[in-house]
């Protein structure tokens, strides 16, 4: 990675890096940037207050004023979808990357140490992978009640396992390489070897996986909100909005359809990024040997 002899300028390096990206990666990043931009600047982008009820415009089909139509309470669906992006994106982000932050080091450590540490971590991981997520969420909801916290707790308890497994597998390969050996000979403590030298080199497959995990987590959050175990109305959340529109599906197809399209668009953007990253990181790994 650090093979450049004459260091080119920052801009030039960025341009070269961007130039090497595949079309899917660029498209995915572009879509995601637009979605994140709309979410961050929701108060300026959204034409209406997402909770504003206007009984003059109940169940209006999409037109130029209400791009996505209005719901049974006369709320503007376009504005609600944009505000919903704030919640779904930030919750999905936490559900994906918080478990990754401890999953990768756990797996890397187990892969580095091997022996009984690996066996213990391995059986805990296998157990957590086999633990049905549904059971976890039921139990947590039964104890603390439905809501976003129950979802976070369940995901934080189980979501790290795939990252640990991926990082462990990569570490098994990395630990025999020269730079690892060098770090060991130089007498670096295990903590430093694993975190500073190991993790950066074992994180690639986890980063690729995190993109589909992100999609799955948004689907999970919206699904749980749909059945009433997640975000509670009237908070604009995509799954809860779809649940709201369920009863009016015959008169007003747009209430359900629009938030669903938002989920599909976000998920597709993330998949495109994941696909592009897989190729980008895969090729770099290949050439770095």
């Amino acid at each position, binding site marked *: 990675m650090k093979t450049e002899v004459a260091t080119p300028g920052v801009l030039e390096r960025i341009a070269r890096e961007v130039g090497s990206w595949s079309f899917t990666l660029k498209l995915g990043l572009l879509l995601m940037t637009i979605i994140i931009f709309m979410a961050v600047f929701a108060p300026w982008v959204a034409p209406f207050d997402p909770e504003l009820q206007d009984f003059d415009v109940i169940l209006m089909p999409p037109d130029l004023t209400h791009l996505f139509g209005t719901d049974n309470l006369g709320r503007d669906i376009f504005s609600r979808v944009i505000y919903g992006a704030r919640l779904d994106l930030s919750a999905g982000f936490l559900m994906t990357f918080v478990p990754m932050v401890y999953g990768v080091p756990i797996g890397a450590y187990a892969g580095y140490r091997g022996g009984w540490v690996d066996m213990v971590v391995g059986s805990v991981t296998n157990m957590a992978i086999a633990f*049905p997520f549904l*059971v976890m969420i039921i139990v947590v909801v039964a104890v603390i009640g439905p809501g976003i916290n129950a979802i976070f707790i369940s995901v934080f308890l189980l979501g790290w396992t795939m990252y640990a497994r991926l990082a462990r597998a990569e570490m098994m390969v990395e630990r025999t390489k020269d730079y690892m050996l060098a770090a060991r000979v130089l007498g670096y403590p295990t903590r430093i070897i694993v975190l500073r030298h190991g993790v950066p080199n074992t994180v690639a497959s986890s980063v690729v996986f995190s993109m589909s995990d992100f999609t799955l987590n948004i689907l999970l959050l919206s699904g749980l909100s749909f059945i009433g175990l997640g975000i509670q109305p009237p908070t604009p959340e995509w799954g809860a909005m779809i649940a709201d529109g*369920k009863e009016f599906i015959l008169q007003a197809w747009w209430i359900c359809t629009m938030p669903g399209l938002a989920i599909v668009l976000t998920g597709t953007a993330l998949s*495109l990024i994941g696909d592009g990253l897989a190729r980008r990181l895969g090729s770099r790994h290949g050439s770095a040997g």
Partner: protein
Amino acid sequence: MLVARYVISRVLHTLPVLIGVTLFTFLAIQFVPGDPIRIMTRGHVSDAEVAAIYDRLGMNRPLAIQYGSFIVKAATGDLGESIIQNAPVSELVGEKIAPTMWLLGMGTFLSIIIALPLSLLAAAWPDSAFDHTVRTASMIGFAMPPFWIGLLLILGFGLHLGWLPISGYGDGFLGHFTHMILPGLTIAFFLAPILIQSLRASLLDALDADHIEVARSRGVPEWRIYLKHALRNALLPTLTVLSVNISWLVSGAVVVESVFALPGLGSLLIRSVGYRDYPLIQGLALVFAVIVVAVNLIADLCNGIIDRRVLRAT
């Protein structure tokens, strides 16, 4: 002999999971703030009645004994008693398990029916227009929320076209079958993309292998190479993908049941959480864990049948 040893070792592997799930559920319910019986009965009963319920459910015994007796009873099919619905948990589960099984079965069946030909054709002509279409479609399909697909299917096939029933479970085998087509398709929309992605990749890998070259040079017809040699080797990783995703599939099934108003375990579950019916929650947790573990076990056994080398690995 080999098969028997493999089966026994796989079954033993499931035990820690089941014990972990039940122990976790059991301990978590102890942490419910307040008195679970009072929460369940919403304060409509006197102190004496609460004490009587405690007595009847054996909840004033030491925790270890309570857990031990739950496990021993569960092993014989007795999952305790729902106080709110005033019925044994196993009976409630027994009434509702068939639609859920139908849904999981139909969903998996339709997913395979959709995924198999698409990934075979995509792998036969990699990087063709067809291949790109299949991959793009599966990328988009993967991002579609199952409950949303379900609603759109209801709107399209059920309400506008009127071809298929949109809710309930129907009567008799044929009735169940037709009622399960749309819910099954909903599951397939979610599962088929995952299968296509892994099946296509492993088919391409399998087609690269030496024995395929040998078969080609021996003049084995191309269709036979695909169906017999490549597909057989590509099925193993796909089965693994299927079993890894079964936990998601079961969670998805609960949501899909709610969309199509199916009287299955999912509706029972949502009700039990709503009423805070703790014995029912505990029983359902075990039932769902058993379903997930059993499907994993079946996938493992299929692996063993497809590839006998797996048998020796354990």
